[in-house]
C-alpha cells in the first residue's frame, strides 16, 4: 500500500521556519485591528441577506397535473435528494474502482468485486428511486431543492476521489462521509414512506437501507484495516 505519511518537506507549519515565525509574531503583537467587533459581525451580514427570503429553489409542479399535499411535496423533495445522491454515488464508486486499479489493496482491504457490488447497489437504489418518483407522479429529471443542497454539501467528494494524487485509503475516507449521510437519509426516507402510508415503498426502502448499512460497515472495516497496515498496529 502506498502511503503519503513518510517524512518529506511539508512547509505549512511554523515550526519549519522558526526565525520567520518569530518575525510574524513580532508584527502581529504591534498591530491593532482597524475596526472593532468580532466574527459575529459576519453573522449579522448573513442574517441581513437571509431576510431577503429567497430560497435556493422550489419544487416543480406535479408532472401529472394532480395537485400534491405539503407532506407529499416534502416526500418528493427527499426522494429527489436520494435519487441525485445515489446517482452521484454510482459515479463515486466508478472513481473508487479506478483508484483500486491504480493502487491495489491491503490485507483486510476491499477486493475489486466488493467495490463493484456496492457500485451496482448504489445504481439499483437510484433506479428504485426513479421508479418511486415516477409512480408518485413526479419528474425523475428534476433537481429538487434538497437534491441541490446535498449536492453542494458533498461537492468535495468527487474532488477527492478523482484526484490522481489521492490513494485508496484516503478515498475510502471520503466515501465514508457519503455512506454516513446515506445511512441517515435512507432511514428518514423509510420513516417518511411509512408515515405517508406508502407501505410498498417503505418495504423497498428498508431493503435499500439494509444494504447501505452493510456498505457503511464494510467501508469502516476497510479503513481500520488500512490504518492497521499503515501503523503496523492491530486495530479492533
Amino acid at each position, binding site marked *: 500500500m502506498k502511503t503519503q505519511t513518510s517524512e518529506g518537506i511539508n512547509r505549512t507549519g511554523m515550526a519549519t521556519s522558526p526565525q520567520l515565525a518569530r518575525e510574524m509574531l513580532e508584527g502581529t503583537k504591534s498591530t491593532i485591528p482597524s475596526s472593532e467587533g468580532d466574527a459575529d459581525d459576519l453573522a449579522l451580514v448573513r442574517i441581513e441577506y437571509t431576510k431577503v427570503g429567497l430560497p435556493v*429553489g422550489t419544487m416543480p409542479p406535479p408532472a401529472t397535473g394532480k395537485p400534491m399535499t405539503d407532506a407529499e411535496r416534502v416526500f418528493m423533495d427527499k426522494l429527489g435528494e436520494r435519487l441525485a445522491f445515489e446517482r452521484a454515488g454510482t459515479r463515486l464508486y466508478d472513481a473508487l474502482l479506478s483508484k483500486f486499479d491504480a493502487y491495489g489493496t491491503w490485507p483486510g482491504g476491499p477486493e475489486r468485486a466488493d467495490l463493484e457490488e456496492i457500485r451496482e447497489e448504489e445504481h439499483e437504489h437510484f433506479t428504485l428511486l426513479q421508479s418511486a418518483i415516477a409512480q408518485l407522479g413526479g419528474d425523475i429529471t428534476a433537481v429538487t431543492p434538497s437534491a441541490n443542497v446535498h449536492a453542494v454539501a458533498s461537492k468535495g467528494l*468527487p474532488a477527492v476521489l478523482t484526484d490522481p494524487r489521492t490513494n485508496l485509503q484516503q478515498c475510502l475516507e471520503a466515501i465514508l462521509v457519503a455512506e454516513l449521510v446515506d445511512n441517515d437519509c435512507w432511514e428518514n426516507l423509510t420513516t417518511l414512506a411509512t408515515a405517508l402510508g406508502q407501505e410498498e415503498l417503505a418495504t423497498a426502502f428498508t431493503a435499500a437501507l439494509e444494504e447501505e448499512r452493510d456498505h457503511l460497515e464494510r467501508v469502516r472495516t476497510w479503513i481500520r484495516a488500512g490504518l492497521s497496515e499503515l501503523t503496523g498496529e492491530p486495530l479492533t
Partner: protein
Amino acid sequence: MTLDLFKTKGTPLDKQVFTWRDLVQPPYSKLDDDAFTRVRVILMNGIESEALRFSHACARMNSKLQAALAAIRRVEQHQQTMVNWLNPADQSPLETTIGFEQVAIEVTASVAQHEPDPYLAQVYRFGLLEDFDHLYRYSALYDRLEGKDANTLVQSYTDILPGRPTVVEHRAPIDDLRRPYDRATAQAVTKLNALTIMAGEHQTHDYYMTVGPFFSDPTARQLYAEIASIEEQHVTQYESIIDANETWLEKWVLHEANEVYNYWSCVEFEQNPRIKKIWERFLDYELGQLQAVCAIFEDIERRDVQEILPAKLPEPIQYVSQRAFVREVLEQEVDLRAQGTEFVDASELPKDSPSTQYARQINSEGSPSQTVAAGWVWEPGTELSGTAGLQPGATRVGEAAQPTGNGNSRSPR
C-alpha cells in the same frame, strides 16, 4: 419598440454610484429561473469584461484619454461585479461552463441570422458548430464525473449533441484569421454583432483558463485545456472580423453603443422582475456613458458621431431557443473547415495543410474531448438512468424495466 440613441440621455455619470451592499444582490435561482436569465447574466458579464479590457488597452495607447477612460471604467467595473455576482454559489464552475456554452450557441445563432453580411454570417455559423460540440463534451463530463444531467441547466432549449468534433477544431493560427468588415460601409448591426460575440468568447476563454485548474480529474483538466485553446482560436477569429482601421475613439463609441444594445436586448426578454430592474438601471447607465463618450469623440475627432452610429438600434438579440436553425446549420455545415480566411469542405483540405499538421501534433497523445464522450449519448437523467418507460405514473416499484444506460455497462478489466 426600439431605442433612439441620441434622444435618450440615460443616467448622468455623476449619478452612477454603488455601495458594496448594492453590488452584491441576491443571485438568480439555478433551479427556478429561466435558463435564458443565466445566459444573459453570463453574456453581460462578458460584455462588461470587454469594456474593461478595451478601456485599459485604449488608456495604454492614449494618454489624453486616460482620465475619461478611468472614470467610466470604474463604473463598468462595478456593473460587471453586480452582474457576475448574480451567479449563485450553488452553481459549480462546471455548471457555469455549461451556461457559457449555451450562451455561445443561442446568442451566436441569433446573431448569425441577423447578420446582413453573408460572409460574416458564415463566420458565426462556423464558430457556432464548434461551441455546440463543446456543450456536448462538457455535458458528458458532468454526467460521468458527477452523475448529473446538463439538461437541468439548459432546460431543453438547446440540443446536447455532437457538433463539429472538438478534436478537429484545432487549427494553425493562420487558419483562424477572417476577413474584416469595412468600417466605412458596414452596417451598425454588423459592428455590434462582432463586438458582442468577441466579448462573449473572450470571457469564455478567460473563465476556462481560471476554473480549469480547480478540477481534480485529469480528463477534466485536459478537457478545459483543450476547449480553452479553441476559445482562444475563437477570440482570434472574432477580433479579426473587426476593422482594425477604426480609430480608438470610434472603437470606444462602438463599445458603449454595444453595451446599450445588449442591456436593451436583456430588458426586452427578461422574465425575472428583480433582474430586469438591474438591466433597466444599467441600460440607463450605458446611455449616460454613451452620451459622454460621443461628446469626447466629437470634440477630438471633429466629426458627427452619427457618421458611425445609427439613431435607432437594430432588432434586439433574440433570447429564444434557436434549435431549428442550429440543426439546419449542423446538417449542412458540420464538415466545413477553415483554409486561410475561407471555408472549404473537409475533403478539400490538403493532408499536409498547416492546420492538419497542427492538429496531428496537438492530438498525438490523445484527445480529451474524445475520451470524455466515448460512446456517450445524452439521456434524460444521465446515461445511468435508462429512462425508457419511466414516465410519471407509468410504473410501480418492483415492476420497472431494467435500466439500459450504457454508463452501467462497465468493461471487464
